[in-house]
């Protein structure tokens, strides 16, 4: 004969086991239903939490492409983010993100920065993504880090833009364009010390180039090598008598408000 206390203990143990057997699959299923960070395409590229790009913060995104050297100006994003924080009330993420040009994650960012020195050859997916991105209201700022008129980046990047958007799509932006009045007032695109050091025609270009889609600038192309001009640690900005990153504020404010 089993004692009543022992019987109660066995009954309680059996009940608990039954509950556990029923609850365990549910718990596993619930856990599987939770989104995992790795499960989201493109999120492994993010140096910031994935959720940041989906929030109301502006995230400075740098485009990564297959050809060339996409990561030639690593200090520019931080510097520009710092300028945005300094000059504007735009809620900005403290750190930028890197997004594949061929990834659908591209469409989560209203502004993308692209630079490099080497020849650029966009893949099919990159080309299609870039065209769709701009046509859907995205803004991409492409800067020739090579600051070379006859350079490989300039010839290939402008060639790619003409191939994607049409032979006549890439045009000079007039210096009275609202881009130069989006936040600060500029009479012309700010010059850089690097453009004169280029190996090409040794000229300062009077205009930036751009592609307009639906009456709005969707692609901004620069020969001026702002990537070099803005490529310093933001803590050293205090040594400059004139902050040269203010034009970056204009570009981003234009991208976010037009």
């Amino acid at each position: 004969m089993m004692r009543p206390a022992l019987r109660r203990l066995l009954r309680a143990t059996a009940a608990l086991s039954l509950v556990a057997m029923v609850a365990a699959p549910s718990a596993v299923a619930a856990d599987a239903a939770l989104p995992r960070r790795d499960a989201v395409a493109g999120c492994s590229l993010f140096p910031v939490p994935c959720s940041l790009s989906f929030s109301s913060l502006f995230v400075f995104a740098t485009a990564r492409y297959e050809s060339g050297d996409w990561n030639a100006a690593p200090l520019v994003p931080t510097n520009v983010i710092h300028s945005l924080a300094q000059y504007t009330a735009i809620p900005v993420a403290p750190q930028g993100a890197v997004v594949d040009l061929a990834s659908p994650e591209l469409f989560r960012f209203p502004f993308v920065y692209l630079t490099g020195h080497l020849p650029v050859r966009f893949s099919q997916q990159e080309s299609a993504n870039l065209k769709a991105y701009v046509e859907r209201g995205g803004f991409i700022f492409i800067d020739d880090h090579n600051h070379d008129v006859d350079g490989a980046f300039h010839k290939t990047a402008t060639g790619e833009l003409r191939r994607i958007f049409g032979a006549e799509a890439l045009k000079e932006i007039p210096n009275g364009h609202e881009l130069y009045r989006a936040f600060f007032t500029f009479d012309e695109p700010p010059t850089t010390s690097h453009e004169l050091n280029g190996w090409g025609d040794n000229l300062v270009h009077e205009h930036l180039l751009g592609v307009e889609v639906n009456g709005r600038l969707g692609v901004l192309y620069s020969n001026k090598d702002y990537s070099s001009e803005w490529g310093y640690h933001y803590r050293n900005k205090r040594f400059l008598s004139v902050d040269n990153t203010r034009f970056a504020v204009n570009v981003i404010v234009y991208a976010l408000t037009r």
Partner: protein
Amino acid sequence: MRTALRQPPHSPPPVLPPVDRIVARVRKLWRWSVAARTLAAAPALLAATAVLLVAADLLMPMRAVLREALRWLPFALAGGVIGYGAWRIARPPSPRRFALLAEERIPQLENRLITAFDVALGDPDSLVARAFVADAERRLAEVDVRGVAPFKLGVPLVVLLTSWCLALAFAIAFPTAAREAWWRWVTPRDSYEQRWREVRASTLPAVPTPPMPVFDEMRWQITPPAYTGLRESEGRGDEPLQALAGSRVRLRSAFFGRWSAVRATRIGGGALPVRRQGGEWIAEWTQSPGERGISLEAIARGEVVSRRVVPVIVVPDRAPDVRLTAPEADLILAAPRGRIPVRATAADDYGVGPFVLSWSRTRGSGETFEYQEGVWQFASLRRTDRGAAAELVLDLDAMQLQPGDVIHVRAVASDRNTVTGPGQSVSRTRMIRIARPDEMDQVNTEVGFPMELPKDPLLSQRMLLIKTQRLQAERGRLSAAELRARAAEIASDQGRLRERVGEQIFTRQTAGLQDLNVEGGFTEHGGAGAHDEHDAAPAQPANGQAGGQASGGGSFNDQVVAAASAATGQGTMDEVQHNHDSDPILEVNRTLLSLYNVMWAAERELNQSAPNGAIPHQLEALRIIDQIRKAERLFPSANMRVDPVNVDSARGQGKVDDAAPAQRAVGAALPTTDALLAEIDRVSASAGTATARAFSMQLSGLAARALAGANGDAQAAALLSRAAGEAQAGRTAQARSLLLRARARIAPPAATRAHSLPSTTDPAAAAYYRRLGRG
């Protein structure tokens, strides 16, 4: 004797001229009589048959198929009568029969006419014949044949008039029924029951008016562009059409009699012509890339009685998918020799057009920079229905490449799209680079090519330390000459490493990007002897003993050396600690200068064949190098990570003294779906109260709005169009369900809605924004 000529060969001609004349006159009268009766009987028969059929259909409704067959019966009968009359006139009876007719109708002939024919068949020269002829010529000359062939038009005319009178009376008494009867027999394929209800409704006041017919089931036919090679396709029109740009689309359906017109309008465009063919309307157009669909409207009495939106989804013709399969990776070659196969494939949804290999070559740098590009045709190209595979072998010897040259190749393919294209795609780019002689120690050249080793690489500080320790361990077994030679060799390597550190210091000092091989005025010559001002160089780097002089001015070299002396603890205590006004560049380089000095001390000990004295300096150099590695990288390379910006502390801290913030105007409002969503909600709320027709019309209007605008949504428009069809069929619940599905598709998710900018609580930032005029 004209009659005789028309006689058959076996009928002999009559012998008497009066006989022939009488027969001819009778024939003529008979022909007029036949013609008159034919012309009277044919319309009479037509009218009577039509009236009988219509009356029978009104009293006992026929099936549409039977009506479609019977409506030709009156015409067939009338046509038959006319044909028979014409045949009779063209082929009249024989003269003998006309003679019999005349004998029958004219009694005073007393058979003389028919006898004349018999006489002609017998012996006309006999005595009896001559006597008969003499009498007959006299009697027949007096005969009048009028009345032999009467017209007898009474019955046909009575029938004709009666039929017309009956039809006219019915049309006057029952105009709607008469119109319905007319259209029923003109367009017999219309639904009889519906028409019959209308007739009853107009004739019997108790029956409600039947509903106006609405757009019935539609059929579409799509003819794809010729370049696709696809065949025509057909289908029902209640689902979204999917067509390639350039396709010919034909849409058709029934055209009901109560409609006066069908009107088609392009969504976001102009009118589309609609033609009527039989009992159908047909709208036909060539699909353009931006075409979103058409809106159909049925017009009756100047009013839109039915509306239907037909969305069209433009199927994209995708550009080819191009892949470069060989080389599989970028190549760095030690020499511009050999042959490199390049293979590529391309696939397209409708076939690949031109397929080439694009290349670019960059050579040199700086002012000697060259850039060339071009296109190569593949040596072999194999095409399939939807793809192509190509190959080209690059002969590097023939290309006359030089060290440092970079070749970029990529395959470029176009499709055959002649409507919106051709679409062009490129493969990923492969780089083939010829290594420069001075970078052979930094790059991995490809297997199979000769690889040149660096001739005289630098040894690391750890390797130098190991060699020195080994020399110290073997010192007892070595002769003095061997010890001196091996120690001098290590000292030489130590000196080269020290010079490299010195070059780094110099590069920073001038902030230039000059070639490291350029003479910078900072190269040591002759070891310790070259630095007389450093005679009291530290015996132990870390002991902190003061000695020597630290120069506070003079040439650049003097400044650097003075800073170096200070870094290693030389000079007076005041000079060592007096750093606040030192050159910031030198301050940054202080650690490197310390490293430079301890390396120099180790080198000097080794030159004196004292490895045991060099080892402490080398250990100190390793420690400093490790310290530098752990320090913050002030001049980082591409793979660096930067600390996040402290956004809160940076707010409102920008320099704006010389800046002129622009005055910004309020921009144009962005396109929004709020108005459409509000309209959808309003229509959804009226689903239970509005009539089926009104609900359907509202849904069709919503479908047109969903397609129009900058953010047209064809799928949502298709749902709304289907909802309109359900609504007009009286299935309100299904229509409302589709309406809600369309609304969920149009409504943006809450996460994508714009967020208002937060207001700042930082007083400094608030003041800053007030200065900018944006507070």
